[in-house]
């Protein structure tokens, strides 16, 4: 998971507004570190990390709302929408992986780690681990309760529909992301908080 970076250049005796701007600047940079994966629809882990960093930036804007310009609030709303789109995408990814495991486990009882970990992260520091929780895995992979032929049929159909849904979710997110870039989201926020662009 994309860990929050420590913000080092803060002055605890200085006004909060001044420090808040620096923290927002770092959180914004953290989010944009994952932006080169936007056009990779199956960069599951990287898109998930983008979601986490977007959420952290949004919460930072909310926590410091009283200290930042009021015009930052609509930007927080955009981040919330982005986070919801990426959240729906991630939920679909987990469900699809789970369905594939349910259906694959009968033929191959030992699940392929690649199916449950997604691609290895190419972005900043990230641990590779399953994005399906272990208790969820053990609940559906118990060989004593494997699905019957009829149940398998239902699961297969559901998997197909879910893959379609996922495609639509990705398109909706991507479109929104590029809209924000056209509106110069990053530049706009940096201007509001009076900070320069920083990169990782």
């Amino acid at each position: 998971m994309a860990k929050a970076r420590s913000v080092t250049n803060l002055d605890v005796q200085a006004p909060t507004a001044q420090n808040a701007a620096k923290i927002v600047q770092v959180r914004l940079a953290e989010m944009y570190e994952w932006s080169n994966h936007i056009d990779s629809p199956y960069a599951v882990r990287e898109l998930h990390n983008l979601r986490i960093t977007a959420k952290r930036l949004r919460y930072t804007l909310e926590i410091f709302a009283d200290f930042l310009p009021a015009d930052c609030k609509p930007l927080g709303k955009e981040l919330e929408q982005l986070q919801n789109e990426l959240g729906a995408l991630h939920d679909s990814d987990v469900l699809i992986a789970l369905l594939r495991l349910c259906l694959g486990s009968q033929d191959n009882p030992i699940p392929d780690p690649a199916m449950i970990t997604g691609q290895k992260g190419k972005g900043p520091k990230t641990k590779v681990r399953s994005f399906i929780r272990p208790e969820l895995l053990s609940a559906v992979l118990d060989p004593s309760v494997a699905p019957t032929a009829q149940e398998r049929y239902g699961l297969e159909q559901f998997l197909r529909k879910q893959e379609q849904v996922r495609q639509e979710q990705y398109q909706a997110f991507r479109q929104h992301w590029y809209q924000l870039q056209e509106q110069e989201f990053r530049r706009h926020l940096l201007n509001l908080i009076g900070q320069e662009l920083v990169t990782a």
Partner: protein
Amino acid sequence: MMMYEHELSGVPLNSCSYIIIILCTLSQSGILFYMFEQHVSRNEPSIVSFGLHYMEETMEHQLQMIKCAAIDIGSNSVELVIANCAPDSLELIKDDQTMVRLGENVKVIGEIGQEKREALLTTLRKYRGEAEHEQINVVLAVATEALRKAQNRQQIVDEIERTTGIQVHILSGIVEAALTYHGATYDGTELCADAAVLDVGGGSTELIIVQQRHIAWLSSLPIGSGWLHDQILNSDPPVEDDIQEAQDFLSQYVRQLYIPSLPQQLVVTGSSARALLKIARQMLKKDEQDAHFTRKDLAVCLSMLEKVRSEEVAQRYGVGQERAKVLPSGALLLQAMMEYLHLDEVIISRYGLREGVLLAYARYGEQWLEHPEVRPDDSRVGVAPPVPERVSRNEKQRETFKQSVRNELPKRGKKFLNWIDDVLQNDDIESVHKMRVASRRLRATMDAYESACKAKPFRKTYQQVKQAANLLGAARDTDVMVQHIQEQMEQIVEEEKAGIQWLLDHLASCRKQQQQELETFLVDFDEQRFQQQLASSIGK
């Protein structure tokens, strides 16, 4: 002429008879009548009943129905109603409202500024014109919270009288509450005798508890939809953190109210409540005549209002944009009151203060503002809890980082801990969601303030929050997945359902296990120690 049905019942009539009623005396208080039975074969009619009928209501309706106008100068809107009025009935002729948002000005500068004053005078001139067009002489104008609080209220009232000829009465919160009660319930055919009334206004909220159709207790709270909007919910649409803050504030505030009894039924009035009903009718395709408004309706409206900008709300549902801006606040206020009063449903009345003013005038004449039904004695007046002073933005701006960590971290920590009992009760999956969000906010706050904290206690606390967030996240993710699958179930053909059910059954058993792990963690969670650690992180 009307007669009461029950007064004719019980008179056995021959099938070949008919009734003759002769009115003998007509007085202001009633009619002396003789009732004869006339048989078709007889010449002499026989008296079957006689007596004095008190028909005050009917007679006075006909004799005293007068055309009046009432104007309500509120914190959000200035509203007009023109009606033919009798003590217990109104025939509405005209209804108009204009959003002026006087309360917005009063909050910022403590008085009504020039721009708002002009908007108010323009609106009142227009209403005066409408009243003249209807050939009305009696224009009753009342003002509520915004003018009550404005330092220049007398100047405004004088200017209104000088330029429009309208005399404005600035009502106390209590008189406002009493008049609202009379207005909101006058047409209440389906109301029980103990139905309470709630008026969600712009600058204040009135609650009236009723016993046997008489005001038993009433209070005027200095919080309204416009007030809440200006204080906390001033983003469009409101941001999640502000919504949470508003909910926390309202829940704590209304808890300080001490009402004599919980009402069985609640009638809600006010333009925001009516706009919410209008939206719910469109979103949920509800019957246009149905005035019932449930918590579910409210949740649907709130969920939309949290996401959609006021401009779009106004376009989609046909409400004014200025009204749409304060609707999230109105909805949260209503939600807090419904929760406090343990009600799952309310009835939204089309009527309120303006109609109460007209009825009071028709009933009590020129002394309408002095009557005990309008000005209840102090024994029936409930104390409104004081509103805590909110630190102004300017003061906040001066806070150092070290000072703000002292305010923020304990506040976020408390919000996180507040959900433990609800999660342990395990009767609403939303509690897990809310506690997870609180844990994420707390983590984000800790991430932000890390450099202002002491490393060792900070790390310990952070680990605990992280552990809680993971367990809450696991449970919440399963809830979301189950909800998503259940929603899909409705569109799935029969032969595919067995597979989906298989998955749902396995998810349910997994969720049970996750709840157990979460409960084990929370039962052992030492809240006091956690708060101490958090405090040590901040240092002195």
